[in-house]
């Protein structure tokens, strides 16, 4: 066995996150690859949520249906997993008697009763039961006591010596139980890799927010909306450290217009939102279009329409961001698949926005932002904050017609010129015009010329797998790891993946990849295959609906689903 999938399930408020954080951190620090993904209800307390923690010796950063070990924390936990076929007879279920007793009778080989609460009470209180549970699981791995001690001291130090000590005690009691499991049920033989110890353990949210800081973000105006709020929270918490103006706006319209005002005045601004909030920003997007004001929009998708499933995942807003808003103007859509993508693409979004003076989207989804895993510390070596602001002269014209279509961007108060920006059609000075010849010049500058330049700067998709594929799997955004994992397992299949990190606009250069394949299939987490529409639109390349794997129940793809789908393809 080179990996194990552990699932905790229970009600909101039962501390699933705390146990998971404990286990994930310690295991990562011990040298294992870890990946944690969550699915939860739209409520604050109660309901049934689950968290999957995959521990492995290779990168396994995707949701999988199979559960090796499950710890139910509430009565609804087991039925909840069963409903989505995530429990099998092989799954080792560990828990309190009340919760697993019935299963223990049916399937004693794969059920372990541990009285977490009782043990916890012996140690010092019910509150330690999660630590006991974590200990039981951690015992299955090669974890040094010191690693755990460090974690517990760091985490509970502020609550006093006693709490730390009792936690340690609870942990050790858990370990004892775990050893029993290890001998009775489950012998893992996974070698940790010390390289991983030095890696970060971060979420998709963290990657985007840190990418924003690296991109020079110093202004964020947003309105809270799951699953995008994390980025607002992260930047709020770093606001003093990095000099970021934060405004929780009264609504999304305001947030977007504030972002534009901030860029106009020389800031590097972003908004973070989800589909419904972004729907309110369409008019502002169009304003960015005609005024050629840069803008960065982080949009974390969730299933729609309207409120839909607010805490679930989907890739249903791609057409929305590409086509919404009145009139023709360019925009760029970046769709990270890995944590490194999240960081680098968000960083780059600021540079692209500034360079082309267009709105740039970082399009993620709930699955991406709410999952976390280990990843090497991002290299800041090559990172640059590219600035394109000019100091204005007296004769400065904001919309000077140039060959490239890009007019040097001045900002007010920086130079002798005036910076006039107008939502109406305007002349080179930025003043309103009804000269229809000027209109044509401006459209050609704003739309055609800039679009050409943007296409030339296209971020090529990443080819994963051999060059001599017969089947090519097209993916974008958060489906990177799940497909990659399957391809790694079925090697010599003749299947490769083309993962799009920029989904709009596309470059013809991509066609070469597509046309080389005997068969091109696509995998999207939405009901209608939105990216395949864009492929058709932009490149005239068609993927038949028989060759699409679409999912729209609010969950991400499981490794098993991809395996099954791809088993029909390749040599």
């Amino acid at each position: 066995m080179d990996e194990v999938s552990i699932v905790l399930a229970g009600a909101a408020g039962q501390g699933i996150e705390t146990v998971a954080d404990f286990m994930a951190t310690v295991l990562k620090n011990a040298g294992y690859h870890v990946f944690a993904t969550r699915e939860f209800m739209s409520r604050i307390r109660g309901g049934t949520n689950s968290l999957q923690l995959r521990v492995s010796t290779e990168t396994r950063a995707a949701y999988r249906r199979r559960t090796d070990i499950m710890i139910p924390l509430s009565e609804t936990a087991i039925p909840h997993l069963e409903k989505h076929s995530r429990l099998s007879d092989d799954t080792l279920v560990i828990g309190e008697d009340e919760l697993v007793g019935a299963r223990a009778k049916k399937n004693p080989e794969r059920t372990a009763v541990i009285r977490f609460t009782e043990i916890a009470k012996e140690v010092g209180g019910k509150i330690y039961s999660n630590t006991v549970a974590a200990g039981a699981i951690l015992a299955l791995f090669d974890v040094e006591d010191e690693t755990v001690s460090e974690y517990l001291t760091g985490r509970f130090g502020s609550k006093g010596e006693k709490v730390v000590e009792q936690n340690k005690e609870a942990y050790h009691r858990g370990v004892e139980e775990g050893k029993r499991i290890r001998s009775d049920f489950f012998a893992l033989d996974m070698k940790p890799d010390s390289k991983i110890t030095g890696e970060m353990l971060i979420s998709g949210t963290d990657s985007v927010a840190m990418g924003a800081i690296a991109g020079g973000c110093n202004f964020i105006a947003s309105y809270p909306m799951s699953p995008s709020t994390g980025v607002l929270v992260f930047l709020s918490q770093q606001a003093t450290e990095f000099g970021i103006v934060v405004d929780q706006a009264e609504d999304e319209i305001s947030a977007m217009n504030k972002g534009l005002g901030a860029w106009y005045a020389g800031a590097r601004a972003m908004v973070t939102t989800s589909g419904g909030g972004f729907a309110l920003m369409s008019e502002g997007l169009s304003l960015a279009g005609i005024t050629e004001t840069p803008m960065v929009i982080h949009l974390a998708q969730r299933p729609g329409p309207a409120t839909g499933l607010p805490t679930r995942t989907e890739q249903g807003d791609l057409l929305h961001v590409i086509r919404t808003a009145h009139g023709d103007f360019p925009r760029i859509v970046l769709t990270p698949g890995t944590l490194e993508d999240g960081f680098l693409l968000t960083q780059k979004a600021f540079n692209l926005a500034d360079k082309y003076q267009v709105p740039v989207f970082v399009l993620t989804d709930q699955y991406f932002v709410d999952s976390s895993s280990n990843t090497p510390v991002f290299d800041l070596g090559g990172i640059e904050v590219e600035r394109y602001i000019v100091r204005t002269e007296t004769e400065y014209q904001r919309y000077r017609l140039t060959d490239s279509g890009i007019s040097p961007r001045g900002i007010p108060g920086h130079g002798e010129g005036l910076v006039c920006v107008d939502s109406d059609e305007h002349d080179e000075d930025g003043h309103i015009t009804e000269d229809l010849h000027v209109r044509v010049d401006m459209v050609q500058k704003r739309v055609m010329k800039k679009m050409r330049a943007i296409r030339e700067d296209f971020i090529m998709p990443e080819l994963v797998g051999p060059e001599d594929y017969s089947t090519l799997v097209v993916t974008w955004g958060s489906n990177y790891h799940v497909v990659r994992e399957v391809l790694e397992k079925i090697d010599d299949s003749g299947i490769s993946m083309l993962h799009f990190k920029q989904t709009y606009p596309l470059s013809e250069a991509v066609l070469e990849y597509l046309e080389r394949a005997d068969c091109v299939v696509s995998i999207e987490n939405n009901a209608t295959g939105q990216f395949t529409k864009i492929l058709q639109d932009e490149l005239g390349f068609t993927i038949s609906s028989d060759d699409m794997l679409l999912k729209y129940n609010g969950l991400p793809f499981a490794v098993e689903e991809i395996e099954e789908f791809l088993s029909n393809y390749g040599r």
Partner: protein
Amino acid sequence: MKPEDFEIMDDVDYDIAWCPGCGNFRIRKVLMQALAELDLKPQEVVMTSGIGQAAKMPQYLRVNFFNGLHGRSLPLALAIKAANPELTVIAESGDGCMYGEGGNHFVHTMLRNPNITVFAHNNMVYGLTKGQASPTSREDFETPVQTADRGGVTNTPFNPMALAISMGATFVARAFIGDEDKSKDLMKKAISHRGFALLDIFQPCVTYNKLNTFGWFKKNTYYLDESHDPSDKIAAFGKSLETEKLPLGVFYSDPGQPTFEEESTVYRDDKRPLFQRDVDFDRLGNLLQSKI
């Protein structure tokens, strides 16, 4: 500075799109005087506006401007000021733009008290879209939409003074552009105020509002005098409810409140506007390290 320093119409190849006789011309003239007398440089002034006849104002002045979307002048203004507190920021638009489409920003910007100035041209009508009722239209006012057979306007008129006072605006005043001197004075006061300043300006629309004319405003307004204490919020509110004759002047003023920019930690130790700053990559490196 001289008013002519703010004149742009000599340099551009379009003319002013207002109707002859419109009150907007006078607002423009007086505003140029006010800016000059405050000794502001055109390069330091940024105006934001929405869409409408009033909202065209920045197009006719030699200043920086962001003439944005209908109703959205205030988010722009707040952000510009927050990104560069050294700029003098004025949001100017019509009653429909500021109080109708932009109503939510109006309410919530006041609660933040940014150091910006708002000039709202109150002609009690939608000018640019040809004469429908605006939020401030008087009851029974008849328009192509609020038709005579249905009794004209039936909504209670939006009361910007009362609203601003209730939402904690720190400077609330009203002018009638028929009186240029006093209007100039009020504009200067509003711009000089530290914090959010609202100046609602009665501006006759000679084309679409045949009810609220120059004469009507003259007859139906009066100036608040010394007997009114602008630091008394309840008294100010009382004044804002008067309808027999509409008061002009400073209803309420409270210059002592901290501004949005001041309350942001960003300018606590470093006064430079955002565009002059760089990312601190050392700190970012530390942040990354902290995630190990």
